[in-house]
């Protein structure tokens, strides 16, 4: 059970992330490097958040302190997301220059969204790793853990589902946010921090006994919604390009 459970939970929490990595990030070396650099940046962000609370550890078994940690954490992450946006703009400028110097190469909407998705995946992966995967090897032992928030399933399964929801949320939020920031659509890019804060505060429901029954499905739905939003954003751009290409093809005929 230990090893099978370990692999099972690993795939539940990390399978979609791994799939996104293998399909979108791994084939392009530049994206792999961006992924690693972004992981490092999100680690620094988490470290700074933790440093703010260093004076208060051990964090009191008190809703106030834990909620404060969540809110401050979300605020720091959103500030880091804005820094990621600035870095994204810089990278786009560099790549545009590189594309100009190398005839026959393009920097289009697809590449822009791939860069955003990579940064988002790094965000999600960093959180998944530090919040969940670090503790998963404990499952390889002989026993398991249960928490009052979720007596129906082991702590590791509940954590896997939670981690999955946040991974998808973070991964898909970045293309939406960057697209909104790029097109100056305030509603779009403000929705992302709002969704992030909402998801984080929703997890406070896990402080109640049996709270995960409500929290987990809602979070997974929210993550699916963010994924749909990201898909819509990318599809819209692809559609625009396709329409433009076919229009110019028609003109030539």
């Amino acid at each position, binding site marked *: 059970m230990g090893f099978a459970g370990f692999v099972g939970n690993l795939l539940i929490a990390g399978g979609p992330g791994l799939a996104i990595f293998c399909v979108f990030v791994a084939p*392009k*070396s*530049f*994206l*792999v*490097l961006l992924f*690693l*650099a972004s*992981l*490092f940046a999100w*680690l620094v962000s*988490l*470290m700074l958040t*933790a*440093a703010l*609370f*260093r004076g208060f*550890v*051990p*964090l009191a078994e008190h809703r106030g302190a*834990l909620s404060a*940690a*969540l809110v401050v954490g979300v605020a720091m*992450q959103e500030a880091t997301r804005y820094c990621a946006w600035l870095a994204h703009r810089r990278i786009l400028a560099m*790549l545009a220059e*590189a594309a100009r*110097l190398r005839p026959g*190469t*393009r*920097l*289009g909407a*697809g*590449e822009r969204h791939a860069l955003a998705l990579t940064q988002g995946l790094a965000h999600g992966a960093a*959180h998944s*790793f*530090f*919040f*969940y995967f*670090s*503790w*998963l*090897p404990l499952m390889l032992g002989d026993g398991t853990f249960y*928490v009052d*928030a*979720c007596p129906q399933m082991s*702590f590791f399964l*509940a*954590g896997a589902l*939670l*981690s999955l929801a*946040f991974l998808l949320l973070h991964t898909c939020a970045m293309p939406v946010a960057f697209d909104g920031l790029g097109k100056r659509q305030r509603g779009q890019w403000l929705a992302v921090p709002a969704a*992030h804060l909402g*998801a*984080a505060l929703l*997890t*406070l429901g*896990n*402080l109640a006994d049996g709270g*995960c029954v409500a*929290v987990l499905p809602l979070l997974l739905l929210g993550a699916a919604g963010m994924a749909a939003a990201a898909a819509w954003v990318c599809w819209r751009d692809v559609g625009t390009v396709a329409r433009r290409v076919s229009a110019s093809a028609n003109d030539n005929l």
Partner: protein
Amino acid sequence: MERSILDNLGEEVTGIVTPVTLCMATTVLLVRILNPDGASNSNTMRLATAYYNEKESDSATTKFEGALINALIVVAAVTGMTFMLFLLYKYRCTRCIYGYMAFAGFSIFFTLTGLITLQLVVKFGLVLDAVSFTFMLFNFAVVGVTALFFWPAPLALKQGYLVVVGTVTAYVFTFVPEWTTWALLVAMALYDLWAVLSPGGPLKVLVELAMEREEDIPALIYEARPAGRAPRERRAVRGAGASAAAVAVPAVDASSVAAISAAAVTPVAPLGVAAAGGMPASSEAAAGGPHDAGQRELQPPPAHARDWRAGDEAGEAGEDAEQPLLPAQGSAGHSTTAAASGGAEGVRQPHADPGEGSESGLPDGIKLGMGDFIFYSVLVGRAAMYDMLTAFAAYLGIVAGLGATLLLLALARKALPALPVSIALGASFYFLARGVLEPFVLPLSVHLLYF
């Protein structure tokens, strides 16, 4: 049909980052499977615990002082070995060098790998008889030694064996007690800085001598060969630094677990990340040796590395007719590790014309010494003994340091030590993760509170 700008961009760097990650990952896996509690064994690395044998009950001051002295002893041994290697190389005792390299390589692939594999077999309860095991292990070791040092072999095979060298040696190093490990890592990083950059540094003089003679330095180097480059994009580079063939290095085999009584410690000249700008297709990574493997395709294997380069140029002549032959390059700074094959490496780069190389400033191929692989893996392995959270934080610190070093390489265009930045970042992130991040994240995740 337009290609995406992201295609092929950054391949040189992932060519190095991927094997480093693989080496670190396998070391962490071994540590977690075989030695999760971090039990140290002073018999494993007698050199590293020569002065002080760490005990749990000692005070922090005692541990700190003892660890410092232990680390200094190791660094002194490494320096001595490097000078010995330099003297052997200077007086052309190449047979001694390669003979020892073969012996050390065999001991790593046969003895150390065998012991680790045996422990794994016992741990997982695999059914395997001694005769089959010895037969397979012997073949593995012989192929490894010949592929790395003597005969031409596919690049992937050599790279694979180099990763095995790194993993096995790093795993053995993780048996060094905790305080001594950290002191050793910091000491080696400082030593690397001195050896690579200062005029009197042992690695610098070794490299300069090799440059003068236009020969490869005897060292275990991992070279990332970029894929998908058109031949005309490669440039014929001449010079020691430019040689793509990772020169085999006498592996420093200080550890010899139990079975072997202190194998001679040979310094593995950790060559830094060497930008092998535009290596010809025929040159192969990892393992020069008397016959340069890469040259088979172009011409009969030359007896000496020098001929290899000439052959290279001949082969490239057709494509690179207009390319000037670059002067012999040197790579600076290797730090040698007495205790491990490899050792801190400098980022090494041939003195290519400033106009050459990719737009990113990095040359087409990058070399990193096995010493760097080993010390990175030791750091992450030691971090994994505490927690996977600290291991991951240390890993990210190391990769960030490696990236920073490569950026500096692109700017400085000369050999640089690859250990200092990575070890500094890796170690600081380990301690920060342990002291700052974990007390914050753990209560949140235990209560299933994520953000």
